[in-house]
């Protein structure tokens, strides 16, 4: 019986801690470009990323510019929205859909650097 009680309290503690962490407004990517977003926008802090040493000031990692399907070096696209180039469905101009642009950009970087979330629910945290 005693073990059960401890286990129950442990589970309760974990459950409530989840609630505790999710308190407060987090900075999220906006989902305006998506017609019917099925997940809440991914939690994303721009400041955290610019302050990360591995990225340092290379904005063009994310804010890249492609011309004729090749990366244009030393150019960046901070003034454009991602959806300006990445449409909802992949097309002849750009084979990376908007969803994949986000997913792949985030996850591949996180994998390569060995830091940052990679599981669905780690970014798309329920509101």
């Amino acid at each position, binding site marked *: 019986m005693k073990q059960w009680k401890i286990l129950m309290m442990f*589970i309760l503690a*974990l*459950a409530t801690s*989840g609630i505790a962490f999710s308190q407060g407004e987090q900075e999220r990517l906006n989902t305006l470009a998506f017609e019917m977003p*099925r997940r809440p926008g991914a939690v994303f802090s721009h400041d955290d990323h610019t302050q990360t040493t591995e990225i340092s000031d290379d904005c063009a990692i994310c804010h890249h510019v492609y011309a004729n399907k090749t990366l244009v070096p030393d150019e960046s696209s901070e003034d454009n929205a991602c959806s300006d180039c990445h449409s909802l469905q*992949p097309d002849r101009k750009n*084979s990376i*859909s908007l*969803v*994949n642009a986000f*997913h*792949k950009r985030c996850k591949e970087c996180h994998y390569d650097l060995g830091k940052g979330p990679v*599981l*669905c*629910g*780690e970014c798309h*945290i*329920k509101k």
Partner: protein
Amino acid sequence: MGPMVWISALICIFGLLVKFILIIKEVYEKERYLLSYITVRHSLRSIIAWLIPFYPRSTRMRPVYYGISYLFHVLLFLLPVFLMSHIVLINESFNLSWPAMNDTAADILTIGVIFALVFFVLRRRFIPDVRFLTSFMDYILILMVLLPFVTGFLAYHQVILYKWIVIAHVLSGEVLLIVIPFSRFSHMITAPLTRAYTGSEFGNIRHARDW
């Protein structure tokens, strides 16, 4: 997606394929006469008759169990295949995409699958003849199917220990895939074969229905 997904999927598909080939090979070597009785027409006749819900008398005699079991089997395949999260992952890897099921619907149907499995457990516990046939292994098999669905459900709702639940979801799904060809889960390929043979014996030789 990590390599284990592909490894386990390949083990599942190739395992079943090899199993199928081995069965046919052994029939050729030891019981080739079976092939002189089996016909495509009577095999399909029997398989189709048994796929029509509540058509065979046996299924009408146990409507609750059969109904639940039928839906369970349909959902077992449809849910993972048409789940948006899975399609997104496939899309990232292969650029393939197909329409996804509504998340709320998937959520409710997942609860349905879980309830079906719980029902199977209860049936194994409380129906005397089923209980008599049940061994420990049967519960293990049910657990193996239950885990991916329960963890998937918990992961979607991000209730607790999200990271660990997702890992458990992926692992239990992979274990299930790997186990399929080596366990009675392989009835997904052997059942059509036994049905086809019995259907052929009944239809082709005995001129009788087998449903």
